[in-house]
């Protein structure tokens, strides 16, 4: 409206309309591509800690497992909990795409609570292990890898919390679910990474 009133040279006119819409040169959505690249970066971060694991357990042959033995059953239960949270996360995603508000709400709350349960059990496990990072290099690797994963669970939970807030304010729906989809992808990554950590630390 104002632009019409002022005989505007091009430079001033720029302030009245926003940027031109960028050409979409790929079928991949930019937010999804962004989180996938970030996950590659995260995998490499874990990779470096796995390198430490390899050097200390295999090359240096520091005794494994650290301490008197690791509570494999507890960790396996935890893996089951985290995996089921991936299922509920997927259900939340599907509900969002279908516009099922109740499904979304139940789904995100269940996922969040399952994540919290995982952390609670993990911390309890830490307290009853009978060794600390100071005990040995193997113990450091154990705490390094599981702790790094735990930190990622916390980040994932923060993202889920944001999604939950938006879901309960009615901001997420079939037309607008990127803010749920991206944390969801991250959460699946955190779950998948636990399978790798669990296998290398507790099973092998």
């Amino acid at each position, binding site marked *: 409206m104002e632009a019409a009133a002022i005989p505007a040279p091009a430079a001033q*006119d720029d302030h009245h309309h926003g940027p031109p819409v960028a050409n979409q*040169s*790929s079928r991949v959505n930019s937010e999804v591509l962004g989180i996938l690249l970030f996950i590659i*970066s995260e995998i490499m971060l874990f990779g470096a800690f796995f390198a430490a694991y390899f050097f200390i357990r295999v090359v240096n042959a520091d005794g494994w497992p650290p301490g008197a033995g690791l509570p494999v059953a507890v960790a396996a239960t935890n893996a089951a909990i985290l995996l089921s949270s991936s299922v509920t996360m997927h259900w939340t995603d599907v509900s969002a795409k279908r516009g099922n508000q109740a499904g979304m709400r139940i789904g995100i709350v269940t996922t969040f609570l399952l994540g919290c349960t995982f952390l609670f059990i993990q911390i309890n496990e830490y307290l009853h292990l009978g060794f600390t990072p100071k005990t040995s290099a193997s113990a450091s690797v154990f705490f390094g890898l599981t702790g790094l994963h735990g930190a990622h669970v916390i980040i994932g939970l923060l993202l889920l919390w944001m999604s939950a807030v938006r879901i309960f304010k009615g901001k997420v729906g079939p037309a607008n679910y990127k803010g749920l989809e991206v944390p969801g992808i991250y959460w699946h990554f955190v779950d998948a990474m636990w399978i790798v950590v669990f296998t290398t630390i507790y099973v092998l």
Partner: protein
Amino acid sequence: MASKIRQAGWYRALAFTILGIAVCIGLSTGLRAAFGLNPVYDGTAVLQISLLMVPIFFLGGIGCFDYWLRWASGRKVVDDHADHGAKSWKDYFKVNTDHKVIGIQYICVSFFFMFVGGLMAMLVRAELAAPGRQFVDPNTYNGLFSVHATLLIFLFVIPVFAGIANYVLPLMIGAPDMAFPRLNALSFWMLPLAGVMMLLSFLAPGGSFAAGWTAYAPLSVDAPIGQAFFTIAVQFAGASSIATALNFLVTIITMRAPGMTFFRMPLLVWANFSTSLLVVIATPFIAASQFMVLLDRALGFNFFNPAGGGDVLMYQHVFWFYSHPAVYIMMLPGFGIISEVLATRARKPVFGYRMMAFSLLAIVLLGFTVWAHHMFVSGMPNWVRIPMMATTAIIAIPTGIKIFSWVATLWRGVLKMDTPMLWATGFIAMFTLGGISGVMLAMVPLDIHVSDTYFIVAHIHYVLFGGSLFTIFAGIYFWFPKMTGRMFNEKLGKIHFWLTFVFFNLTFAPMHLIGVQGMPRRVSDYAEQFATWNMIISISSFILGLSSLIFLYNMVASWRSGPKASSNPWNSLTIEWQVSSPPPIFNFDTIPSVVGGPYEYGVPGAVHAIVGDPAKDLVPAGAGATEGHS
């Protein structure tokens, strides 16, 4: 005052910083009390927690997270572009989402740290001017060369390339901005924090970090608290680097203008694509190495404690798995700049365009297979040496392809030897010398002989100074008219080049000789026999340092009052030169269409892209460009 503190900006940043320190003191004492540790207040613990957390408080205060927090809390977010574009110089000191503003912020901050780091090099050379002790004690000397290297690597070469690419890359591919403008702003603001943290380490008890930029464990684990400044600052610089790289990748993949296929992209875009791949994949390794050092230092972990079963060599493996690719992170964007400058100033298409692109990708792949060539004398198993020697020699092939293609680009071109071109051709000569000493160093016997001597110092400066820095100067001079809308002083630019070129060689070439003769690096004193050469080197280095003042003067004076630059002073075909200088706030009125290759110089009537400009009536009516202009 209260309203100023509520608004994003420096007042709130200051308030948040103070709040952050308070929180860290509370957190530290609270946790220590909860775990029953004595004493409850521990300065070292508070300092380490503060180094990690206070920068995040500062970022919150300056306003990096405002939009995201509003969005995450489900409130209404308005995208009114209020923080896009700079209207006065003050806007450069605020969080801004415009890639052009962020690019200039990057470049200015990194050049600031170049001058600080360069000054430290001058102090190092002053100390080394004669044998014995001149000005500083050995510990301060170790600190000086460590901070010099760290600043110039993490706060200059890596980010200045990110800055140049930030400015020109979206323009080159016909995008209105980067894919994630707010992430872009956040990545910039983490950078000065990392730099300030590194400088603050000089105030730490026990002096600044002094374990070299490589910070080998267990030296870095046992070093005084100044080392923690390095450990944590690198995390912020690294996070900044990863976030920018991710942003570049998404921008290049999803936001190219119609018609801009991958093989029509300018080579600068290819170079940054490759670099960003390296950054996203490799940088987490240095983050991890420093996390482990931090855990060892702060919480008594045993990663690098041989007594507890830790593995010291593991540090070097993890560190070099990042830091070897990092030398390509510090070089590939420069390769891109050189391709742009050479093609434009020789008026010829880049020779072997596709091979130039593929050789970049080959360097990315091979770059991950050579890391242990830094460790030939580390005591790792001997059999690892031979494959690493072979891969290192092989990686010279794609680099050689690039050198020969550049030379072939110049062949029978109409060369215009102005300042950007001087730097570009100077780069080819100097980088070839650095590359040759690199191939020499790949050979295990020679490497064992010259390990930790000045031969290494000479090599790294030939590739990072004669290589990267020359490309940076070429790029800065080349795009200066675009960024500022003014021309630089050509005469001063040429004087700057020749002084730098001559005294660069006088400074670093003799280091090859004294290196082969066995003068050790990283030691503040040396044998009498090296005195003459060191005096020559020191004098040359001071003149080299002074020559950068000509550059500084030229840039500042030309920016203030240089003659106005036209939109395309170099007669270039790529898109960034088809818009005004400096470009409009949103880059384009309509997204340009790409119709041909980027380097069709010498082909009559060749066009790379049609850029919508209603004033010139290039766009057919009804294409949407004239909307709002009637």
